[in-house]
């Protein structure tokens, strides 16, 4: 597992208060991890802070699974 994946999963566990083993790469934030739309906004803010990336609204809308987040961050972090 990549370093990005570890950090993303840690943030998801902290923000959503879910068990670490539920946070698989295929897990959907809303369908599998019980996030609501406000949680997604907060997660995106947390990712931006953790990785120093800017995630614009149209990109954020496409992030629905843990893997989506990891891929986006890997592609855009400096």
């Amino acid at each position: 597992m990549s370093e990005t994946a570890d950090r993303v999963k840690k943030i998801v566990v902290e923000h959503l208060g879910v068990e670490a083993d539920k946070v698989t790469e295929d897990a959907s934030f809303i369908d599998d991890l019980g996030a609501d739309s406000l949680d997604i906004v907060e997660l995106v803010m947390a990712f931006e802070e953790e990785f120093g990336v800017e995630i614009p609204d149209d990109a954020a809308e496409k992030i629905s699974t843990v893997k989506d987040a990891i891929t986006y961050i890997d592609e855009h972090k400096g």
Partner: protein
Amino acid sequence: MFDLTGMTALVTGASGGIGSAIAKGLAAQGARLAVSGSNVAKLEAFLTELGGEGHVAVPCDLSDAAAVDALVPQAVAALGGRIDVLVNNAGVTRDNLAMRMKDDEWDQVIRVNLEAAFRLIRAAAKPMMKQRFGRVISITSVVGQTGNPGQANYAASKAGLVGMSKALAQELASRNITVNCVAPGFIRSAMTDGLPEAQKTQLTARIPAGDLGTGEDIAAAVVYLASKEAGYVTGQTIHVNGGMAMV
């Protein structure tokens, strides 16, 4: 009760009549303030009058969208990284009969009174969500509820604040952020002081309390809504009008 020690607040229109009373009220309960206004000299003079420690002035022209978007980050930085309370107090009037109302009279009032408030709340919601605490208080007006001839633009902007606040109250309640309004009636100010005696008599005849209100009457409601004690109150409007409209 209603102790605001350790809290920070951004107040727009802070050098005006009601705004300065609100700022003083919040500061008296221990909050540190970022006071905003468009007239820099007036704002600096008010900051001196306010006294105390840790308050800052952050001038802003609320009809300039880019300046408005920059105001909250500026205030947060100046206040050391927190914004607990946002008071949307600034407002303008461009009164005219609707049939004679120019496009820019409509636009200016909506832009400053309603759109700027939205931009400020949108910007403040981010740090407030992270803090898991926030108090947004918008100063509306009795005419947002009752209407007033010659003020289609102003009444629309104030009623707009009420609807917007209710929507945002629902969006943000789970993060311990409350969004409320305070609706003043007729308040003693430089404007009402200048009215002819006959008109003042006519005005007060419509107020069961028999007198105009003061800035302090409004400030007291704002202090309450800003406090931790008001955490279960959201999406509401407190009418402070001596009974002239009961809704």
